């Protein structure tokens, strides 16, 4: 198992998708349980990767992106082979705020969430505030996640602030929590309070943890 973990981590670090998938395939062929692949190999590898980003900041976005994508892909494949259907931790609707066409952050976050057994409903780009709330209600999601890459789409009147207002009007604030992320929030860690979000996260694995916490809070 140790060797599998080390080899997989290295493939992820090298941003080598083919090698990573091959290692997983061989592990499965050699009888490693699909549950172990997800919880002992894939998820810890994501954590190692993201830790590198925040502590020494020498892991690039490209590695990040691939790690999340491979994790999502492998998890989906493994979950189908689980002996018992895994307990879904909760659901999240995700999208970019209205007027914002930057989709990369959302994609990375979604990949990580899937690996953490959190259901993701992807609303795409340029999502109006009403739609975030409507879809969250329709899917029984506990969390709305909004990605914004520019200041005006983060702070603007059709972004998170409006989502908050609608949640309040409809009395949904205890049932649905809001998390934000993207470049402006990384440049100013106080900004999430200005837009009245419940939380923010600077990278995808932190996002996974924070979102898992928000889901737990709602479910209590």
């Amino acid at each position: 198992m140790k060797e599998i973990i080390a080899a997989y981590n290295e493939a992820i670090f090298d941003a080598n998708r083919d090698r990573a998938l091959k290692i997983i395939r061989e592990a499965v062929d050699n009888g490693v349980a699909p549950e172990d692949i997800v919880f002992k190999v894939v998820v810890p590898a994501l954590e190692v990767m993201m830790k590198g980003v925040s502590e020494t900041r020498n892991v690039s976005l490209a590695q990040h992106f691939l790690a999340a994508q491979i994790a999502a892909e492998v998890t989906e494949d493994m979950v189908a082979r689980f002996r018992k259907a895994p307990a879904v931790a909760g659901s999240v609707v995700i999208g970019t705020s209205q007027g914002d066409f930057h989709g990369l952050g959302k994609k990375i976050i979604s990949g990580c969430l899937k690996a953490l057994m959190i259901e993701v409903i992807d609303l795409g780009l340029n999502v109006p505030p009403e739609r975030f709330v409507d879809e969250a209600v329709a899917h029984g999601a506990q969390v709305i996640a909004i990605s914004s890459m520019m200041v005006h789409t983060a702070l603007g009147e059709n972004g998170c602030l409006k989502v908050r207002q609608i949640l309040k009007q409809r009395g949904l604030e205890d049932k649905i929590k809001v998390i934000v992320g993207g470049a402006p929030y990384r440049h100013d860690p106080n900004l999430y309070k200005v837009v009245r979000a419940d939380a923010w996260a600077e990278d995808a694995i932190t996002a996974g943890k924070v979102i898992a916490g928000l889901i737990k809070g709602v479910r209590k």
Partner: protein
Amino acid sequence: MISGMDRLVAAAKGETSDRVPVFCNLIDQGAKELGMTIEEYYSNGEYVAEAQLRMREKYGYDNLWGLFYVGKEAELMGCGKIIFATDGPPNVGQMILKSYDDIDRLVVPQDISSHPAFQEPLKCLNILKKEAGGKYPVCAYVTASMTLPAILMGMEKWMELLLTGPAAVRDELLEKCSDFFKKEITAYRNAGADVIIYANAFGSTDFVPMRMFQELSLPWMERDLKPVGTDGVVYYCGGARMNAVLGQVIERLGLGTYYLSPFDDIAEGKKIIGGRGLTCGVINDIRLIDWSKEEIRSEVKRMMDAGKPGRKFLFGTLVMPYVIPEENIRAMLEAAYEFGGLGGDDK
């Protein structure tokens, strides 16, 4: 009277002038200045030129911009849909490359100068040159071949192609983007741009691993720049960090100016550049939205203290958000003029 150009030239040569040159990148703010919507503002090059001249006069900083918005480059490549906001920069609203076949079909315009989408920026540049040419450096913004695909196909698709797609398709696209780059920089130079911001987020190891930077980013930057020369070209990674690659970029490309990230250590960057070029220390301008005057002052002072020793230093902003209060813009600039002062004795 010392002009912005005098300051910039002195800084580049490591000579002294009254103070460190200050590049303050007010772009969409021009609309507010003229009391227009942002969409109306960008419909006419005369508006942009007038507002650029007015804002420079009003605040006293050292540069002028011929940039409308980065999405212009997508328009030059055939994009027909730009989304205008009321309180921020316009964005590309449609990706012209939806499939690999589209890459094959993509045609780089023969001549940028006569392209319809270039006429308003051209008008703007002509006015800026006429009114302020030689006195204040006129800046243009041109995206590198490695980064341009982000606004032609979207960042996610580009990352996917770059990391897992067929190399031949990737290279065909890069070839076309590099061809476009060379034509675009030539058009801007012919129109009189003094400073060319060479924008390449993929020229930062925040974006790609070091090995990919060396095997792909560096060679493509060489292909962009070798044929057109590095005159007036500024290395800029879109706000991403560059200290880790500075040494290699200087050796391979020999550019004259490096526009750091707010998250790069200024003193360290200057040390690596080591007199081989001009270092631009860049403020985290998103914080200007809610920093107090005192916080702004102390941040500017910190940056000047780190960058001023040994001269060859420039102070700059990124793309200033529209919502920064005017008084905070002034607070930053006043602090920059004060702490950037070059007394006769601080060699």
